[in-house]
């Protein structure tokens, strides 16, 4: 409630029981509902008497001189781009506000003058969950004409998926269709976001500055008002020590999943259930050696890039992606080497997507044998990105620790084993080793503030991680609402992650219900969506009782199948059409009662 007190400074404040009561009423409300409530309360206040001066709302004309930055983010990359845009804009003296897409007041769109949007595309061309409502609004007939709007869109995506940056493209086209004018051309950022985000920010902010007529003199002074960040962050990670690293699939399982406990003591890092931990990985020395040998390069070669001189070995091991290729990198590599077969590959969208999904740099070098210098490799390969893991613990139970659930990512390519960079490293970490980490907030994936609400958690595989945090949190605060977990994996006996903890939670009553699907324990494959359907009637009862729904895990198949199952369940139990059920689910999402953390 600090924010509330600040806003109403000089006015009467609510304290004690009354404040708690207000808090309780607001608990569990979505952003939209909170905005509505704010308007309602404002109207009541106006009716009650004159406003104190300190609380004068911004004049409507403020929009004229303000840059609005909206982001739609699933894993935090778009949010980070938005924050970088904001810093840059403020350093240029612009008046800026940054809003998550679901917090953007849609009625203000018609008056908006300068708008920057950073939005990601998930899986097969899906929007991030926080943007669904805004996109529906924009794509509907209710969307206002926007003749006064100047805008720019940067899309984020992964070029190994067919519908790369699809949502950004769609949004960009739609804003133009509604009458908006581009401040600068749309940009599509691949997994190496910075490569595209930097130039986009320069172009977009310069154009906005001109538009909003900011005097050049205000310059960089504004930046100095912002205190430099003191804590650990993405760019300044904390070297967390490994306290425990325990395999949690049976030894005879084909799948290796580990439970990691890291020590955050002294880091100042705090997290909430739902947040993710960012890990800055390092490439496995064996992989670096293999890449060097296959490409015919000497790891000791010194390479200067971005004002930094390192040996090639270190560039590859610490600074470059080797396990994830991007289409952009492929295009440049084949351009540079004039490889016709390679050019044909990148020209064929579908073939390229297939290739990116199933191959790593090593495979590319072995097949196309690009002859490039050490310096060229360093400049062409995407910079190494951090990997995000949904946090599997609650600080209320583990204090200064943070727990992760890490599955080995492993593929067979032409008879050879290919690993994911972070999981390979994390699984091998010995107790006492250190790994650079930071907290990636995920405000879209939060427990209901009202602890009397029920929660339904659908988390097959490592998707169960945040629900361990949820259940720990709800146990610690003694939440009166009930918890229902849906889990799925291959075999009950081998791959039931945290089985003994769930059984203990059932025993204590913390977990009211536990439903499981083990896909390979019977002839017919059986997944969580099948169990959801079997429990349809009770699920709808819970939802009608105000339960919050959460889904975490695989985005490409599971989240879609679960989404479809939920639609069909709502339709079947309530006798609604599928469209009505879809709309109902959208409403739940808008109210923050259907949240997903999928990847």
């Amino acid at each position, binding site marked *: 409630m600090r924010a509330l007190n600040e806003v109403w400074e000089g006015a009467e404040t609510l304290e004690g029981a009354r404040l708690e009561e207000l808090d309780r009423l607001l608990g569990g409300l979505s952003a939209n509902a909170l905005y509505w409530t704010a308007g309602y309360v404002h109207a009541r206040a106006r009716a009650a008497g004159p406003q104190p001066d300190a609380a004068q709302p911004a004049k409507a004309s403020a929009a004229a001189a303000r840059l609005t930055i909206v982001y739609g983010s699933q894993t935090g990359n778009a949010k980070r781009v938005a924050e970088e845009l904001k810093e840059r804009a403020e350093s240029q003296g612009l008046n800026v506000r940054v809003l998550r897409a679901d917090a953007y007041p849609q009625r203000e769109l018609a008056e908006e003058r300068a708008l920057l949007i950073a939005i990601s595309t998930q899986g097969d061309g899906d929007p991030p969950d926080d943007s669904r409502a805004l996109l529906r609004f924009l794509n509907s007939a209710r969307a206002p004409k926007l003749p006064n709007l100047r805008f720019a869109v940067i899309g984020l995506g992964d070029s190994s998926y067919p519908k790369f940056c699809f949502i950004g493209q769609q949004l960009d086209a739609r804003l133009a269709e509604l009458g908006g004018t581009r401040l600068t051309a749309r940009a599509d950022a691949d997994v190496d976001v910075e490569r595209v985000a930097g130039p986009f920010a320069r172009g977009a902010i310069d154009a906005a500055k001109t538009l909003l007529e900011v005097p050049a003199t205000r310059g960089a002074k504004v930046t100095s008002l912002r205190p430099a960040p003191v804590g650990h962050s993405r760019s300044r990670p904390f070297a967390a020590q490994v306290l425990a690293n325990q395999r949690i699939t049976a030894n005879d399982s084909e799948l290796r999943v580990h439970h990691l406990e890291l020590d955050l003591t002294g880091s100042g890092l705090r997290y909430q259930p739902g947040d993710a931990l960012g890990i800055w990985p390092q490439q496995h020395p064996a992989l670096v050696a293999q890449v060097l040998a296959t490409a015919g390069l000497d790891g000791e070669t010194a390479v200067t890039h971005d004002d930094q001189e390192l040996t090639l070995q270190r560039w590859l091991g610490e600074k470059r992606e080797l396990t994830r290729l991007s289409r952009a990198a492929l295009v440049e590599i084949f351009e540079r080497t004039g490889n016709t077969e390679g050019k044909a590959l990148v020209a064929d969208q579908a073939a390229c997507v297939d290739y990116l999904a199933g191959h790593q740099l090593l495979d590319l070098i072995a097949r196309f044998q690009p002859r490039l210098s050490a310096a060229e490799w360093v400049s062409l390969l995407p910079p190494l990105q951090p990997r995000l893991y949904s946090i599997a613990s609650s600080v209320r139970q583990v204090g200064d620790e943070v727990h992760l659930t890490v599955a080995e990512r492993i593929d067979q390519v032409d008879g050879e084993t290919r690993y994911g960079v972070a999981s390979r490293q994390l699984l091998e970490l010995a107790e006492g080793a250190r790994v650079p980490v930071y907290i990636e907030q995920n405000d879209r994936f939060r427990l209901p503030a009202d602890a009397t609400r029920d929660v339904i958690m659908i988390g097959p595989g490592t998707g169960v991680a945040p629900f361990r945090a949820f259940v720990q949190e709800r146990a610690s605060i003694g939440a009166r609402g009930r918890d229902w977990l849906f889990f799925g994996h291959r075999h009950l006996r081998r791959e039931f992650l945290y089985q003994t903890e769930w059984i203990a939670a059932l025993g204590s009553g913390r977990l009211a219900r536990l439903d*499981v699907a083990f896909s390979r324990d019977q002839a017919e494959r059986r997944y969580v969506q099948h169990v959801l359907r079997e429990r349809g009637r009770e699920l709808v009862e819970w939802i009608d009782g105000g339960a919050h729904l959460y889904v975490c895990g695989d985005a490409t198949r599971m989240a879609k199948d679960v989404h479809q199952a939920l639609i069909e369940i709502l339709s079947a139990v309530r006798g609604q059409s599928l469209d009505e059920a879809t709309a109902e689910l959208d409403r739940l999402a808008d109210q923050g009662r259907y949240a997903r953390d999928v990847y």
Partner: protein
Amino acid sequence: MEASVFSPLSDVERIKTASRLLRGTLAESLDDAWTGALRVDDTQLIKFHGSYQQDDRELRNERELAKLEPAYSFMIRTRTPGGVVTPAQWLALDAIAQRYANGSLRLTTRQAFQIHGVIKRELKPTLQAINAALIDTIAACGDVNRNLLIASNYDASPIHAEVHAQAVALGEHLLPRTRAYYQLWLDEEQIAGTPEEEPIYGPTYLPRKFKIGFAVPPSNDVDLFAQDLGFAAIIENGVLTGYNVSAGGGLGTTHGDARTYARLGDTLGFITCADLIKVGEAVLTTQRDHGNRSDRKLSRLKYTIDRLAVDVFKAEVERRAGVVFAPARIVVWRQQGDRFGWQESAAETPGRASLTLRIQAGRIADREAATNLTGLREIARIHAGDFRITPNQNLAIAGITPDTRAAIADLVRAHGLDLHEHLPPVRLNSLACVAFPTCPLAMAEAERYLPAFGAKVEELLENHGLARADIGVRISGCPNGCSRPFLAEIGLVGKALGRYNLHLGGDRLGLRLNRLYRENIDESEILSTLGGLFARYANERENSEGFGDYTLRRVLEVGAGEQP
């Protein structure tokens, strides 16, 4: 009724009382998809249905670290009175072992088949498959009359068949009457309004397990005096006239609990065949009403009899049965072990023969060259007689027709089933319980240790010129004593992994309990102790004196007439 003397009732009594005749929440337990285990109370009730919940104890530690529950599985035990099955039933059990269990069959000292490693989800289909083969598992475990032990050497005389039939009739009479088994596993409809009751057992069954054995002297292969209730067939002028009845045998003890002891049955007297069922039921109900229901360590019939005194107990049985025991007939016992190899059948099945095979520790599996499971499957496909498990964990192929005789002999040789032709006596007459990794009671290895231990004993005997000495060795993983170690000439009773109590002094007839000689010793000490004893035995034995008799006389130095 003396039951009220015992309070509080043990927790198992509470579970039985609340179980609605053995149903409990078993149906719900089977539906708990998140665990391979049953709910706690149901782990007691499942026993009455012929199964134990177990777990792989060697995986416990690593699974606990991995936040996984223990690797639960179920042992299923058949109710096969006298251990007799047809070739078709053999093939069915073989297929079940491969499909649902760990690919092996285990022959028990109570002439039952056990399969191990059945997971909860497959319990029901497994039990359905067993029942489809016309075998059930009702009361194979639990506080009821267990699988009947019946003298196995059927071909020795036609009397065996008569004894077998009478024994089976008694067993049927003492079966629980609840329909729970049929409803839970075989989808029998529950018929509304038909009251169900247990006329013999009552709603809480017995205080503890109850074991009955039938012996046909002179063979005591069933270890008659280790049974709660024993019947020794009395044959006069070639006719089965009745039985000497003994009661109160039992070998299970608890380490460190001086109130527990192994005990041989007391002979109560002689009854005619016509009184068999009345007397059997009377002994069982006397134990039902007078057994200790508070402390399960002290609840077997042997403690009841010692508490009441034999005469009081006998009078109560006579009163309940309406039968007066006649003086016991004189019986001569000559052997405890099996007769291996080929034997010609009794007169009524001319031309037929039986072949008794040595099965090490009762385990039938395919192991390298010893493809026993495959071999017996092949034999079952051509065999026209039946299979009979002996009380010594061995297997008789009985009623072999002349036309299959050669083929069966070939298969026996080809699949390594001919141990009886190669092993010295000491390794033919040994027993071991299952123990690790599945038995929850095991403190030390037994079945898995027997082959190695047997080989070492064999070598020791050879070193002392005793290669042909016929010495009975029994290993049990715990003092519960499933391999009846307290009747052995050399008995090892598990104390901890790799450590055993060494018992000496059994008589090779099952008429004498042995005695603890060395406590909690490891293999090297066991072997050096035995080596020293073998050296003395080789020099000091008298005539054909057995090793047990020798140790009793010279090592344990128990005086004549004194029970060790």
